[in-house]
């Protein structure tokens, strides 16, 4: 049995190689709707990270025996418990310039899919310490993407960084729209993929579980693997097997065949 992976290896796999936003498409709503400026992104990243880590610890420590359909509601309650004081603070102190749109996005973080998915597929099956580290890695991975998105969108869309104007002659205001964020995410995912060396399994139509955090195909002829690939693959397989285990909550979406017919090539 391989040794327990270290923090750096877990970080590499959870935050980089299986980045929850870029490759598992989890927690997209706060990213798309709330990262039009750097300040907003930092705020969203902080709230999302706190929500994810706290929910993961609580799920791991207290919720293992609770039925799944009640656990989901508990994540909502936990999320609201985190979000309410933050919103109260924003409205009453107004120390931070938060745009109007963000005030709607912050409560939505209470029901974001990243928290529910991570807690259900990992946290409830592992001890609190393990769960804390993995959720921290996932939170760091998601936060990194959120902050980079916000930075790029603000520079390209508004010609400023953190509110300080860069005095650019031309800006693309469309970057502050959702489709601008999706384009940035696409390029970030492609950039990250270009550094990956090992192939990733395909979440094909034969997968039992569409909500599993698997990623879409990568069918490449890859280069010579690095020397430490055995250890890296072992860590990947371990975490991958954990992530790919199904439970009743996710199994119910199994469908036997793909119904998409269509005549297009």
């Amino acid at each position, binding site marked *: 049995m391989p040794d327990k992976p270290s923090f750096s290896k877990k970080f590499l796999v959870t935050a980089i190689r299986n980045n929850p936003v870029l490759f598992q498409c989890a927690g997209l709503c706060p990213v798309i709707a709330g990262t039009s400026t750097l300040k907003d992104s930092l705020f969203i990243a902080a709230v999302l990270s706190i929500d994810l880590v706290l929910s993961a610890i609580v799920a791991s420590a207290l919720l293992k025996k609770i039925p799944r359909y009640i656990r989901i509601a508990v994540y909502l309650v936990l999320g609201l418990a985190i979000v309410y004081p933050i919103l109260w603070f924003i409205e009453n102190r107004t120390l931070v310039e938060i745009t109007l749109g963000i005030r709607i996005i912050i409560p939505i973080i209470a029901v974001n899919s990243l928290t529910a998915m991570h807690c259900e597929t990992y946290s409830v099956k592992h001890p609190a310490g393990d769960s804390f580290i993995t959720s921290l890695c996932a939170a760091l991975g998601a936060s990194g993407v959120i902050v980079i998105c916000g930075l790029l969108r603000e520079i390209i869309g508004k010609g400023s960084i953190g509110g300080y104007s860069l005095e650019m002659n031309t800006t693309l205001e*469309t970057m502050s729209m959702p489709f601008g964020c999706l384009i940035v995410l696409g390029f970030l995912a492609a950039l990250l993929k270009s550094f990956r060396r090992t192939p990733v399994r395909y979440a094909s139509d034969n997968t039992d579980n569409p909500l599993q955090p698997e990623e879409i195909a990568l069918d490449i002829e890859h280069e010579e693997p690095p020397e430490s690939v055995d250890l890296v693959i072992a860590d990947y397989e371990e975490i991958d097997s954990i992530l790919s285990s199904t439970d009743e909550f996710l199994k119910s979406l199994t469908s036997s065949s793909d119904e998409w017919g269509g005549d297009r090539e």
Partner: protein
Amino acid sequence: MASDSKNVSKKSIYVFGDYLLMLIFPCAISVWCYGADALRTLGVSVVTGFVFDFILSLIIYKKYFAADLSTLCSSIMIALMMPSDIPAYIPAFACGFAVAVIKIPFGGGMKAPFVPAASGFAFVSVCFKDAVFNYTSGRESMYPVSLASLLAQGRSMKMTTGNFLDIIIGNVRGPMGTGCILVLIACMVFLLIRRRESLISSAGFLAACLAFSIVFPRSEGSLLSSAVLELSAGSLFFASVFLLTDFATLPKYRRDKLAYGIFCGIICMVMRRLAAFEEPVCFAVLLANAFSPLLDIFTNRIMRFFSLNSRRKEVFTDAG
């Protein structure tokens, strides 16, 4: 792999070669009407498209596919849908977007699920709305207001012979290469000879737009003027010839092509009425591209329901 890429190159030359031949005439008209400005805009588009394509191909594919003429076609189409005096960076952004986001990531102009020219133009329409729909330059004899803005204001134009001739020869301010309806009709005739099946979508599109303009006219004038103005305004006719017949996005079967064209026409006319953009045809093309697989399934099911699908005739485009 080598033979596959050779086949793709041959097909690309065959398909996009036809478009390039057709595009010569709107380009010539635009230069005649708008002079050096038109040349500058065309030049900037073509050069930017080539530069983006060259650099990104080298980065991604490690080689440049000179035989893929789709970038050249898309760049020219984008330029022709713009005002002639538009700042140079706008068509540059549009062409860069079309190449970097649509063409390269999806495997080339023959495989992109969205029309690159429509994507690039839609992108800059959102980014630089005022500049893209601002038609101030042109010859002295031109009608001073674009037809699209005339209709958007609910106004009309009396359909006298003189006005009608002005409209069909493009003696009206508007996008620099899409105004001369006569030339576009000639391009349609060329397509009729070379790739007849692709015009089914154009026919559906124009029929839907015509019906909409007659049933729900925007302007106060007669139904004839409403129909003529709606079909001639902006880049609608141009889109029916060049964007809706795009090889990569056109459905395979005849009824799917027709459904695709009709759907695009309806969406375009609804968008015109909502008036978010003076010329929303590129957005309608994007939505039609997105809905196209669903339309295929939908028409297939309808035909099966009416038991009309017992022997489905496989009809490919002439290039296929």
